[in-house]
């Protein structure tokens, strides 16, 4: 019976030690189906190790995981039938052309007929824009072309899950954009689980992310949620006038969680963390302006850049580990 779950990947307490080095520490991960899931983390956080465990290339020290309901250790072959994988540095059979590499890869998944396999390879070459170079030796390919070929190879079996390790990290902006466009185009067909440290790319294509630090997931969820940072929703209000009582008045509101103030030239910039978006949008400004001595010079919801959120989360977690 076909396994049906909301998640393509689920892990519970996945741990990996290399000697004394703890590469993964009690990793719990849930990757929703048909998501483009960005797996973020600083170098050495354990991203590649996680991917290798999911692919059956290395075994966890403890914990377990499932992909489409199959155990990642005991049912690895069944999992690999449904996965496409692009390693960080894609490798090819150098003496084969791009088309031959695709045919070779397709033969791991399909029995035939051969004409249909060739057709499938042509489709993939078209998908990644390499039709014109299909019969050229791989040696002459640029980095971007190799990366696109790598994606075509990963996609040849029409996988339910694509695992991409740093798919755009070594590319120039045009190459990166091409790869991101391909990934976005595959969203309908597959779940995409990819690691990266290019936060701009994540913000452009991902809908869900997990941030890994020191082998542990320190934040996970829809990207909007991550962008809100650990303080949640924050409104920025520029206020002029006597504000001695403002903090006290704001704290009277049950949905205000926290307030901070930054002194500016002519006014104070208040950052007000709230738990209720609707209440904040309708009542916060009115509540401040109830004090007729105050003037509001700006009012906006704070938009975090992913980089800022990432730095906050990772730094906060690292500080926590040290203290």
């Amino acid at each position: 019976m076909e396994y049906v779950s909301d998640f393509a990947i689920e892990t519970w307490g996945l741990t990996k030690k290399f000697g004394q080095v703890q590469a993964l520490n009690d990793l719990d991960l849930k990757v929703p189906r048909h998501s483009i899931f960005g797996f973020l983390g600083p170098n050495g956080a354990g991203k590649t190790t996680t991917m290798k465990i999911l692919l059956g290339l290395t075994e966890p020290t403890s914990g377990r995981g499932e992909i489409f309901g199959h155990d990642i250790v005991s049912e690895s072959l069944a999992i690999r039938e449904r996965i496409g994988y692009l390693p960080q540095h894609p490798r090819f059979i150098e003496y084969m052309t791009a088309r031959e590499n695709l045919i070779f890869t397709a033969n791991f998944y399909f029995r035939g007929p051969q004409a249909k396999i060739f057709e499938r390879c042509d489709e993939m070459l078209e998908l990644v824009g390499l039709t014109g170079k299909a019969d050229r030796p791989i040696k002459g390919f640029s980095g971007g072309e190799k990366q696109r070929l790598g994606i075509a190879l990963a996609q040849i079996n029409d996988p339910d899950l694509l695992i991409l390790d740093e798919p755009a990290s070594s590319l120039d902006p045009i190459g990166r954009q091409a790869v991101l466009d391909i990934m976005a185009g595959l969203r309908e067909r597959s779940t995409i689980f990819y690691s990266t440290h290019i936060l701009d790319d994540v913000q452009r294509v991902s809908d869900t992310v997990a941030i890994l630090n020191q082998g542990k997931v320190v934040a996970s969820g829809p990207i909007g949620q991550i962008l809100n940072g650990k303080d949640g929703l924050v409104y920025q209000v520029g206020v002029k006038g006597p504000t001695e009582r403002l903090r006290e008045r704001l704290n009277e509101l049950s949905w205000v969680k926290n307030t901070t103030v930054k002194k500016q030239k002519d006014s104070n910039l208040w950052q007000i963390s709230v738990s209720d978006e609707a209440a904040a949008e309708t009542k916060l400004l009115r509540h401040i302006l109830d004090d007729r001595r105050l003037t509001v010079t700006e009012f906006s919801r704070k938009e975090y850049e992913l980089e800022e959120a990432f730095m906050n989360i990772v730094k906060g977690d690292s500080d926590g580990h040290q203290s």
Partner: protein
Amino acid sequence: MGTSLDLERIKERKALRGFANLFRKEKQAWWGTRRWWINALLWSGMLGGLVLVMLYILPPLAAATGDPNVAEAGGQAAFGLLMGQQVYFELGTLAVAIGVIVLFQDMIVNERQSGLTEWLLAKPVARRSYVLSKLCASLLVVLAVLIALPALFTYMFLSVRAGSFFPPGAFLGGLGVMVVNSVFYLTMTLMLGTLFTSRPPLLGIALGAALGGNLLASFIEPLLYVTPWMLPKVASLVAGGQPVPDGMLWPPLIASVLWSSLFILIALMKFERTEF
């Protein structure tokens, strides 16, 4: 899957899943590139050339220097034949063993270092298929390019010099010994490729065994009976139709086959547990 492709998917979870495809790839690495004919020319030229020197150049030189072995053999032609088959089977067996080590030292190491192995094993492939496809494809190359083709030329040269067909049974017997010796070093190289991730220790151990084995056995004679180190001499005796002393034929042959089987087993077990 994501879309319904009009293709028949492979679903069997066979013990050798992916073997046929990997074996095709390994064969193509040799037979689909110029490697095979370059090596065919090299090995046939080298071994065949050496035999020709023994058949036609050495005898008159030996006769001119009054070498008693020429007369003892029954003349220059007989001396040449004796030297030709001896050099081919003794030196050739050792040369092929070294060739096997050098040519196949990177059959696993290279792909591991480049990350290709990791990529291949992320496909629905049984790990033993990976190891066995490499073994089978390289064995094919050893048999065809390093042994059969040079042997064909050698047999032809020996027969032409003899004026009649060189005894085929004895020649094939000698070749059989050469094959056993080559398989020993091939499986050893394969196993070392699964145990080490770089070439120096692999080459050191394998070449040390091939070149230093006899030296070691000269101190510990029983080693000759449980290793392939006596096989070049045995190959020459068998091919020359000469009697092989008791205990010199079967013990090293059987031991070499057992060692080869053990090497394959270790390679499979080690590779199955290797983390990438």
